[in-house]
């Protein structure tokens, strides 16, 4: 299905890897995006470490919060992209949707890993323990494991249609966990602090500015990584198409050789 579609409308894949003019413009766009992200990252780090004050109760370890929370949001966005793209793939068999689904899962796992590592480091100081069995932590771990499973199955299952469909279903199932993670603190009692609520944030103005900058730059970084991953994914699809084309040409060569022998 994928091969047929790419053969029919494979311009996006070929452009991504064959060095055409549109590839060059896409590359420039990505470089500009990466440059903006790098500058934004420097500004955000300045705001976090020089502008925002040190928190009174927890001290310097609270600075983890400025990238812990945005990383969690970036992971949710990436996983949601993977889910939507997976649904599109299941309905339409669209090759581009499959590439987006895989990119979303991969980038989401990177950000979710950050959340699962930075959170316990913060918890060691705030709670006196790296890990507790509270709902949000366990649900985040389940979310991470679901998408790690997605990536493992994609890797060991090869490029077959069945693997893609199993993974698409896994991505859709995994995203069901996100609202549970989000509302677990409100629904079930846990240790997780509720700094940002409907009534506003419980942090100072300087901290809010730093948090906002970290949010923006983390989302820029997530989009940048996903765009690069999509470009590589489209190259992989195009590579499959070329392999098939090569096999066809070799069959033609064999047929010609047999014809000349006869």
């Amino acid at each position: 299905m994928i091969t047929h579609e790419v053969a029919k409308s494979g311009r996006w894949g070929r452009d991504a890897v064959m060095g055409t003019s549109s590839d060059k413009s896409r590359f420039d766009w990505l470089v500009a995006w990466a440059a903006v992200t790098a500058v934004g990252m420097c500004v955000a780090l300045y705001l976090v470490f020089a502008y925002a004050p040190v928190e009174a109760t927890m001290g310097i370890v609270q600075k983890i919060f400025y990238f812990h929370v945005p990383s969690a949001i970036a992971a949710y966005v990436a996983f949601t992209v993977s889910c939507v793209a997976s649904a599109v793939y299941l309905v339409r068999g669209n090759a581009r949707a499959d590439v987006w689904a895989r990119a979303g899962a991969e980038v989401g796992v990177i950000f979710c890993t950050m959340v699962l590592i930075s959170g316990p480091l913060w918890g060691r100081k705030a709670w006196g323990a790296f890990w507790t069995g509270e709902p949000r932590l366990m649900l985040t771990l389940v979310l991470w494991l679901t998408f790690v499973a997605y990536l493992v199955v994609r890797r060991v299952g090869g490029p077959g249609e069945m693997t893609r469909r199993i993974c698409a279903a896994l991505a859709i199932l995994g995203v069901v966990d996100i609202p549970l993670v989000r509302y677990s603190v409100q629904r079930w009692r846990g240790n997780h602090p509720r700094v940002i609520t409907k009534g506003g944030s419980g942090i100072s103005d300087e901290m809010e500015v730093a948090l906002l900058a970290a949010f923006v730059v983390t989302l820029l970084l997530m989009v940048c990584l996903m765009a690069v991953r999509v470009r590589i994914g489209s190259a992989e699809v195009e590579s499959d198409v070329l392999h098939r084309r090569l096999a066809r040409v070799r069959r033609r060569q064999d047929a010609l050789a047999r014809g000349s022998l006869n």
Partner: protein
Amino acid sequence: MNRPQRCRLRAGLLTLALCGTMLAFAGTASADVAPPEPQLYGEEVGTPGSGFVPAPDGEGENINGGALMLAAYGVFWVLILGYVGTLASRARRDSAEMGALKRQVTDLEDRLDEIEKGA
């Protein structure tokens, strides 16, 4: 999907199921342990008469928050830079493979076209 791919997929799924079961048991075991009481920001902890015994001077646990923060930011950068490096190497490999494949296909097709014309 051919047979070796099916076997690999089955082995991967079994490994995942095993890991998931082990983690579920670990989660249940850790859930049996009562979590510490929630601590709210700005709330006074250890007020007189709450039953806590103060540690003698200098013997209290002192967790180095700076080291934890550095570790968290270190992990953040290692993950991001590691992933960017992986993407760069994949892009280079794909680009080289695509170039070689495209040349191979074009050469073969041109040669076959010439042979067919000659015939």
